[in-house]
């Protein structure tokens, strides 16, 4: 039977199959036989289409960078935009008071990014400081200490938390949490960095928890068993063996959580007060990058300096999260290599 040309080179088939069964290269798909075979036209078309689609992910990422960068470029290149919103105006103090102000609609417009940068960092730091200890401790608990029935309660609860849309978290923060926090601490401003930060931490906890738990379960059983065999208790094993071994994964979790916190929009838009205040106190309102874009993009005229500055902020956010993602995944790769090498 001669079907499709595959059996026409019989000797190669058997040697290929032999190599496949010995497991050295179990991917029959890389057989030169399959590539050489003429096959139906549909086979070729399918191959081209699929290869094309695969490149779509790369193309999209590049396109995002290109198109956001294209609209942000006039901040550097156009003389007109540079006058109102050039790099000096964006970052250095201005002559009139207050020195750093974000007031895009005054005459002349003020575009200092520093209050926004400070606001973003404040909220992100609060979120990360609250979320990471809680999430890592919870992950340690579920993977080392918790009995199986308790694990079955905690893990679904956190998956539920991951499924809550951020607009709902922002809504809850605005309606309920802001009031509680103000009653508890007696702040002047009800909507401030801590309110927004605590809402943000609710969004970050599931990410850090999942990655930390993956890191802990990736630690080979042999590590734990060896430690217990030498007389260490369970918590000593967890503290001295599991945590250090998975440190790269934990670092990746923190970095990815940080990246998510920086880019989150709806929670800060609803719960932070959106005041571009330059202050270090966490009890003051803040205005973050993402909330600024969301609040002001609707009112810009396409092509105005305000429009280009907003895209510049977007490009900045994109580059920042891109770098944090690269760092995070590189650390995960390192963790995997280290653990696989050891086991």
């Amino acid at each position, binding site marked *: 039977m001669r079907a499709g040309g595959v059996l026409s080179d019989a000797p190669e088939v058997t040697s290929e199959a032999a190599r496949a069964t010995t497991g050295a290269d179990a991917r029959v798909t890389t057989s030169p036989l399959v590539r050489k075979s003429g096959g139906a036209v549909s086979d070729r078309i399918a191959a081209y289409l699929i290869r094309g689609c695969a490149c779509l*992910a790369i193309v999209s990422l590049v396109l995002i960078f290109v198109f956001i960068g294209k609209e942000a470029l006039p901040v550097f290149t156009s003389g007109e935009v540079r006058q109102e919103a050039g790099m000096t105006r964006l970052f250095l103090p201005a002559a009139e008071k207050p020195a750093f102000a974000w007031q895009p609609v005054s005459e002349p417009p003020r575009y200092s990014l520093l209050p926004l940068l400070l606001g973003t960092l404040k909220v992100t730091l609060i979120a990360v400081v609250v979320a990471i200890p809680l999430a890592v401790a919870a992950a340690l608990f579920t993977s080392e200490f918790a009995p199986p029935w308790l694990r079955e309660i905690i893990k679904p609860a956190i998956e539920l938390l991951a499924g809550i849309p951020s607009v709902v978290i922002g809504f809850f923060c605005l309606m309920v949490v802001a009031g509680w926090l103000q009653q508890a601490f007696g702040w002047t401003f009800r909507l401030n960095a801590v309110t927004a930060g605590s809402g943000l931490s*609710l969004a970050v906890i599931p990410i850090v928890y999942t990655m930390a738990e993956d890191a802990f379960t990736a630690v080979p059983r042999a590590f734990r068993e060896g430690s217990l065999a030498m007389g260490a208790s369970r918590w000593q094993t967890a503290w001295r063996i599991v945590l250090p071994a998975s440190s790269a994964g934990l670092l990746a979790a923190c970095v990815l959580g940080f990246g998510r916190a920086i880019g989150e929009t709806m929670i800060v838009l609803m719960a932070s007060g959106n005041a571009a205040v330059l202050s270090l106190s966490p009890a003051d309102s803040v205005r973050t990058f993402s909330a600024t874009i969301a609040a002001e993009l609707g009112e810009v005229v396409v092509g105005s300096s305000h429009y280009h500055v907003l895209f510049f902020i977007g490009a900045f956010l994109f580059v920042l999260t891109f770098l944090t993602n690269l760092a995070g995944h590189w650390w995960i790769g390192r963790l995997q290599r280290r653990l696989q090498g050891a086991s």
Partner: protein
Amino acid sequence: MTMYMAIRNPQSAVRNAAGWFFGTLTGIASLIVVTMVVIILGNIVVNGAGRISWQFLTRTPEMGMTEGGIFPAIFGTFSLVVLMTLVVVPMGVATALYMHEYAPKRSRLVKVVRLAIQNLAGVPAIVFGLFGLGFFIQFIGRGMDQGLYGGDLHYGQPAIIWAALTMALLTLPTVVVASEEALRAIPQSYREAAYAMGATRWQVIRRVVLPQAVGGILTGAILAVSRGAGEVAPVMFTGAAYFLPYLPTRLNDQFMELGYHVYVMTTQSPNVEETKPILYATVLVLLLLTFSLNFTAIMIRARIRSRLRAGR
């Protein structure tokens, strides 16, 4: 017995105490997280459940959003999500197929694609909104208007098609990861058997691999839908509207969306106290939608895993 041991060996007593302390500390952290989840859900259910009724789900908003229902928002979310799925599932599955079936082993392209997918997953939602505005609406939409309609504004403005494409990009990583997991779970022997019987690569994929992978792909699609129904920032400027008197039936219509409706009612509704019950009820509907989708995906995934474990 333990007391005796403690007196005999004070070191181990301290160690046990420390162990309890550590275990309790991490246990408390878990308890805090779980309690927060319970509080959020409880607050929303308690405040919103009273308003939900068949009427609420099937009528349009009336009297300035203080009465009536949220049917247009449900329909709009549904249409958005259907369009998005039609785009993202073929693309995501094709990407996963390439990475797992077609690419030579250790290919650099696969590494780059994987990197791109991971980074796409980390891009903030508002940046997708900017991209949707800058690329889909300003570039492709305006271009279509110039070419097909001679300058009249048809596609160069917020529309459901652009919002769906933006969301498709946002959820592409979810689908790709789930599909890859599904493909990896199929035993290699299935493929080898098919090749040994003379099938071409595409035949193997179409007849053997894809039918087996449907469960995992479905999981990915459902998770993508759940994410797509909940994200607001990407659709704020690419198609969502506050009050539309019509349902989106054409590709260049705008649409109402549950998440955007929640945001807008919280900030722009005419009478905050009167709309509070409706607001909570809308939030509850959105939550129920995303949770039921997530739950379905988890069930399917669990069933696939148990079937595989039993099968091997």
